[in-house]
């Protein structure tokens, strides 16, 4: 039958059919089969801005490995960018607030959208809590509306299995969060600067800093919990809470969805410099290093990803002529992109052996890590 159709109808018909099945924002429950974080985050934003604002909506998705940081965070402070690049893991600024999280296929994301008037962070956390409890796990919600399991002697609080963040615009709001089922917690720790590495003291941001929490996977408490099971549990809890009796709308990343201009634009915007780095709140990065020829302290002041100034202090024994050259180089960083400095615009001495190259390599390495 299908073969016969393909023979009978011209190719243009098939593309027309694709558009006819284009996704609509009017369902109540969506489960994405895509694992592309750029697609899923853009789908989420499209649903947020286009669904009827009175109707409760649920979206569930998983992403392949990536680091996702909050709307008003500093990627250089929160993410171990060098480790992320080496592991081939992208880092993405999302549109909601809050701190930095790690996603991989062992982590399932939920997103509950509601009218702003009835939005209550505690109530939505309870829906997810009921789903976790239905899987036979004794969980609780902490004061930041994160889901925790168990209590440990070393910690007054339980271990996080989930983190949450919110977006509120016009008459709509969402609560989304991660649920750790079987995530690579070792990679999570490597990529998130979880161990209070030096950046906590050296980068001072006016933006939002992550609250570090010890984490556990749900599978540690019940080894049989997998993605599909968690998805069903959340769907059931959502249906019960909001009296929804609709089937799941399965979303695929295909022409019908990436053909939606809003989604396509969102997918292009997320990895752009303007969004990922250009939206970084004002910060100061203070660096110190001793070279054979003297000691330097650099204070790089940046806003929206642009270097506003690089103030250099040298120790007393640096030759005055050299000091002037070093300060000249620091001055030339002004108005360049932080960590994306155009090296061709710097004096040629940064490419020849000597103190200027030492200083430039040091600043470049520090900014890029």
């Amino acid at each position: 039958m299908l073969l016969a159709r393909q023979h009978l109808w011209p190719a243009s018909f098939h593309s027309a059919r694709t558009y006819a099945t284009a996704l609509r924002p009017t369902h109540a429950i969506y489960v994405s089969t895509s694992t592309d974080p750029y697609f899923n985050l853009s789908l989420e934003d499209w649903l947020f801005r286009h669904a009827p604002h009175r109707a409760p909506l649920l979206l569930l998705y998983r992403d392949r490995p990536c680091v996702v940081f909050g709307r008003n965070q500093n990627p250089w402070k929160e993410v171990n960018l060098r480790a992320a690049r080496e592991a081939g893991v992208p880092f993405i600024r999302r549109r909601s607030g809050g701190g930095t999280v790690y996603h991989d296929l062992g982590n399932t994301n939920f997103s509950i959208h509601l009218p702003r008037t009835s939005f209550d962070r505690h109530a939505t956390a309870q829906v997810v809590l009921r789903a976790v409890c239905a899987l036979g796990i004794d969980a609780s919600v902490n004061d930041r509306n994160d889901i925790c399991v168990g209590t440990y002697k070393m910690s007054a609080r339980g271990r996080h299995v989930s983190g949450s963040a919110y977006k509120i615009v016009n008459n709509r709001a969402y609560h989304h969060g991660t649920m750790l089922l079987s995530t690579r917690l070792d990679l999570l720790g490597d990529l998130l600067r979880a161990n209070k590495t030096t950046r906590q003291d050296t980068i001072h941001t006016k933006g939002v800093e992550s609250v570090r929490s010890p984490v556990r996977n749900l599978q540690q408490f019940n080894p049989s919990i997998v993605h599909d099971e968690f998805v069903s549990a959340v769907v059931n809890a959502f249906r019960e809470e909001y009296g929804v009796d609709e089937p799941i709308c399965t979303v695929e990343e295909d022409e019908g969805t990436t053909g939606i201009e809003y989604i396509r634009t969102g997918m292009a915007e997320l990895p752009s410099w303007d969004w990922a780095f250009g939206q970084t709140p004002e910060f100061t990065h203070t660096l110190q290093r001793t070279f054979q020829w003297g000691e330097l302290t650099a204070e790089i002041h940046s806003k929206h990803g642009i270097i506003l100034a690089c103030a250099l202090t040298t120790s007393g024994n640096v030759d005055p002529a050299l000091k002037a050259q070093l300060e000249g180089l620091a001055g030339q960083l002004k108005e360049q992109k932080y960590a994306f400095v155009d090296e061709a615009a710097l004096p040629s001495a940064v490419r020849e052996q000597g103190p200027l190259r030492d200083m430039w390599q040091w600043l470049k390495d520090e900014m890029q890590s």
Partner: protein
Amino acid sequence: MFSALRQVSRPATYAVRAARRPTPSVGVFRTAPFVRTLRFTEDHEAVVFDDSTMTGTVYITNYAQSSLGDVVFVELPAEGNKVTKGDQIGAVESVKAASDIYAPVSGTVTEVNAGLADQPGLLNKSPEDQGWLCKIKVENPAEIEALLTEEAYKAHCEH
């Protein structure tokens, strides 16, 4: 819902307090020959427009701040920026909740409230006064008139 009711119960206060700020004396305000207009957007910004200076002072509404919770970060546009109605000109974050600030009208940003960088909590404590966001020199005053009246805004919040 609770916050919507609060907004409804104090409309007059908003208008007077928001409008009073640029002039120290209420007496001067009453006898002044120019007009101040209070308008709202669907994105929960309020604008007090002063037709003597053609400048609109932008706030987030009391309803917006109460549903956001404790504001920990405010990002404002740069002074001198030209903005078009509907552009995203800033961001607000409360505990883990991000919200966007949109330009209610087109024009040039003449002043921003620099105090918010160190005291973002002013948006909660004094959304209608000390928590003002920025001033925009308005290109086309008809854009102000086209925004929501207080009554229409109240209806929008309850919608």
